[in-house]
């Protein structure tokens, strides 16, 4: 039977990982992820998990160790944040392009410089083109659930792509709230043990893994990887349904929508801010504004069709980002959403709002102010991109 417990996001991540029965865990502590490593170490020390834990000397080695274990046929887990992810980049890219399935938790954090240890999504957003699946979650329950689902998605034979479960540093990693923990038996039924078949680093089946590969062959791998990434979209929906049947919770697949049916304008956001935006939408509705909300769950694969479908009959949208896209005067998610709706040819009124950097709060008032600005612009029949809002 499942049980209910008050837990931090990091505890939720380590319990989710533990329930997925990884063979090997390698991780290195970094704020705000450290208590994930500590939690896993404690569970192994107490015999609650039989995973092999490798206490590596850096994130670069953490990702390298799990690559080795995955190639030798294991299910693996690691977690990191910001600079750790940056240090990991070399084997990180390799993990996905070797098509080795795994789940890595990212407690998202602002990138240095300036020196900072606090929240922001710049780390995970900056590596969105590294060939990983990336899900961003709204609360601690979703962290745990998506780690378990993550293995199911990632290990699907039509997928074989590793997955990041990204959750806001501090605002979720250190937030304590109610989480329902499924029983090991339930998880075992949902997620059977992993069997690696496509690469073997095994004397019983000698092969060269990753020989020097010329471009005319390499391009096929990339094409294949991109096609698989598109297939992931269906697998995510499928796994979400299976998960609901087993555990009673559904997250709606690639995106979730809130009060969008009759909405004129839509707030689009990602991560922990979604919860705040839900409250803001309710408040704005009380004030007579026809607002809806799109929760973008997956950055990769990006749910462009779903977003375009929701926005196709709207007047405008506002995207609230916790990261910036250098070179575009906007947030990262804004760019992606804008690209997604470009085929609609509707010149929707849109606004990019950036906040929550370096640990800053995106308050209810911030979200309300974004809604107000967009609502006013719509009433004035403005079109196209409005000036970027900085939520300070």
């Amino acid at each position, binding site marked *: 039977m499942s049980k209910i417990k008050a837990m931090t996001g990091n505890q939720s991540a380590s319990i989710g990982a533990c329930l997925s029965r990884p063979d090997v865990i390698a991780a290195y502590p970094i704020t705000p992820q450290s208590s994930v490593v500590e939690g896993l170490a404690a569970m192994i020390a107490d015999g609650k998990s039989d995973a*092999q834990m490798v206490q*590596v000397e*850096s994130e670069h*080695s953490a990702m390298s*160790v799990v690559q080795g274990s995955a*190639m030798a046929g*294991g299910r693996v887990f690691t977690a990191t944040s910001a600079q750790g992810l940056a240090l990991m980049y070399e084997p990180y890219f390799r993990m996905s392009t070797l098509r080795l399935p795994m789940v890595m938790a990212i407690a998202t954090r602002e990138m240095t410089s300036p020196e900072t240890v606090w929240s922001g999504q710049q780390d995970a957003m900056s590596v969105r083109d590294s060939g990983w699946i990336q899900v961003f979650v709204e609360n601690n329950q979703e962290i745990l659930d998506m780690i378990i689902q993550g293995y199911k998605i990632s290990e699907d034979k039509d997928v074989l792509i590793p997955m990041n479960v990204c959750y806001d540093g501090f605002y979720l990693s250190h937030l304590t709230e109610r989480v329902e923990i499924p029983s090991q038996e339930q998880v075992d039924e949902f997620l059977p043990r992993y069997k690696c078949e496509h690469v073997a*680093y095994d004397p019983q089946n*000698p092969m060269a893994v990753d020989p*020097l590969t010329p471009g005319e062959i390499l391009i096929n791998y990339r094409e294949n990887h991109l096609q698989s990434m598109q297939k992931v979209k269906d697998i995510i929906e499928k796994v979400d349904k299976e998960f609901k049947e087993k555990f009673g919770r559904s997250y709606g697949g690639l995106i979730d929508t809130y009060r969008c049916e009759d909405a004129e304008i839509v707030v689009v956001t990602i991560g922990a801010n979604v919860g705040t935006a839900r409250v803001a939408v309710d408040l704005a509705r009380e004030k007579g504004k026809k607002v809806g909300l799109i929760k973008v769950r997956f950055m990769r694969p990006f749910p462009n069709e779903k977003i375009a479908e929701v926005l196709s009959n709207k007047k405008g949208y506002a995207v609230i980002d916790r990261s910036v896209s250098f070179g575009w005067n906007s947030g990262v998610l804004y760019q992606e959403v804008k690209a997604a709706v470009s085929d609609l040819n509707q010149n929707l009124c849109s606004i990019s709002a950036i906040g929550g950097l370096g640990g800053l709060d995106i308050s209810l008032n911030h979200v309300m102010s974004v809604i107000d600005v967009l609502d006013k612009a719509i009433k004035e029949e403005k079109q196209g991109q409005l000036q970027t809002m900085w939520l300070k």
Partner: protein
Amino acid sequence: MNYIDKLKFSKDLVTPGMSACQGCGGELCLRRVLQIAGENSVIAIPPGCMAGAGVVGWNFDNGLKVPVHIPLLDNTASFLSGVSQMYQRKGREDVNIIAFAGDGATADCGFQSLTGAAERGEHMLYICYDNEGYMNTGFQRSSTTTKGSKTSTTPVGIVLKGKSQSKKYMPLIMAMHNIEYMATLSPSNMKDFVEKIEKGLEASKRGFAYLHIFSPCPTGWGYPPNLGIEVARKAVKSNFFPLIEFENGKLKINVENKNPIGVGEFLKLSNKFKHLRDEDIAFIQEEVNSRMELIKKLAL
């Protein structure tokens, strides 16, 4: 069975035609390592001469008869840590887990993952074939390049004459990790070489084993290919590259040179040292002497 018989009757697990240079020390060492290790092995060969020479395969062809992976230049030891952990979990500790990495992948950017894996006592045999530089890409300096050596990044110019810094001495650094086994090997002393690979493989089942091979490079160093073994022999006889081993917390000198030859005898064989003046050679001799003295004290 003596070492010659062992080599006579063992299977060559490397492709018969691989594109290492004529007289390549690395090729010789790789073949010997795998002859001794046998087919129940997995090997990781990071970017470097051996990887570049085709043993990691090209297109879909395999250059080795055992599973091989070309890890990143800087993660060989951590990658194999993961492999090793998984093999332990599967109860297959009989499989030899071997790294065959150059000095760049070992002593430079690969050092962090190496020291981490050694400190954790990961079960593997890590072999460094030290040819004193990045030979695969045209002989750039590495931290194991000998002082004064000419390389493509430490040229002999009007102001600067070769590498200004001394060689990083990896064997003692690795021994001080208090690992299961550490030894230095030279292809010139093949009996010692074979025995140490065997010992290293055996130790790798219990913990971390590190072998440092002196691997002469005719192309980069500038000596005729037929002199490879002679160069290696003179490195040993001059105490430039002492043959030592470390096990059970004790250091041992395997080949004692009662009357060592001058280091100049070794240096003069290679073009990369041709420009050295007498005082430069004297400096290197002094370094060699003091290193040998230290080793002798540690080996008491």
